[in-house]
């Protein structure tokens, strides 16, 4: 019988280690073309991922398509995924957003010819946080979520349009009927605040404010 991790910091550390090992195991099996591993990952993550894509896509079929596309993409790339360094959940979350926005047709990059730049980011595993960083964030999520509610309303509105509609700063300004410079300044200030709060709550960043 396996001992269950206890409560407190040690317990959290132990649970994080378990999560890391579980995802490493799934990735190894994916790389070995084990379809059951993909289905296990799907069972674990699809409800949360659908929660994200359903907020972006108005049609449930588009939301489901975006999630499926991300899993097919992961299956294709599993052999190249850096098992020790990068978080699979982080990759899936970032990519389902991208696919859902693509489906929605509101990705500004499509119009501006920036796809190669954006594609290269999301294909690049070197930007991905580690599973340890994700686990730490998840353990403090409730506290961090308060940060978003502390933002002034105009910053919250601008940020929501950026995250959930994939709008450019220009389009956000038009949508909100605000000057471009004000919206740009709001977004930057909002991100600075969030970054600072994360550095405090997670206790490890050097990001200045």
């Amino acid at each position, binding site marked *: 019988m396996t001992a269950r991790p206890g409560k407190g910091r040690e317990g959290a550390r132990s649970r994080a280690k378990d999560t890391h090992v579980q995802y490493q195991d799934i990735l190894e099996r994916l790389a070995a073309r084990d379809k059951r591993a993909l289905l296990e990952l799907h069972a674990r993550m699809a409800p949360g991922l659908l929660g994200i894509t359903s907020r972006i896509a108005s049609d449930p079929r588009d939301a489901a398509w975006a999630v499926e596309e991300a899993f097919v993409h992961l299956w294709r790339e599993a052999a190249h995924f850096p098992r020790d360094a990068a978080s699979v959940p982080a990759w899936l979350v970032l990519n389902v957003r991208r696919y859902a926005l693509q489906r929605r047709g509101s990705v500004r990059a499509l119009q501006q010819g920036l796809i190669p730049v954006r594609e290269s980011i999301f294909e690049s595993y070197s930007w*991905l946080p580690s599973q340890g960083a994700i686990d730490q964030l998840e353990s403090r999520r409730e506290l961090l979520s308060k940060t978003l509610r502390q933002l002034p309303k105009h910053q919250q509105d601008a940020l929501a349009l950026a995250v959930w509609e994939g709008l450019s700063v220009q389009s956000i300004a038009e949508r909100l009927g605000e000057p471009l410079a004000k919206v740009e300044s709001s977004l930057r200030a909002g991100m600075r605040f969030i970054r600072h709060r994360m550095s405090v709550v997670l206790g490890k960043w050097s990001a200045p404010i």
Partner: protein
Amino acid sequence: MVCPYLEDLWELYLLGVLSAEDAHTVSDHLATGCARCCEQMREATLTVYFLTQTGHTVRPDPKSKASLLRRLQKR
């Protein structure tokens, strides 16, 4: 381009918010392999992950696993 100018831009770049000019400035700088900015980009990715999580779940269609398996078999 000096790095401190870019500090406010990482998350906005990842979200696709920036103007084409600013986006190219960021990607050009990243292409230089600047270690400091690569680390900040990793931190920004964590922030975007946090912003993108809704906390809501939606039950997948019972046929979604079968659909996924069909896609794998086609490959």
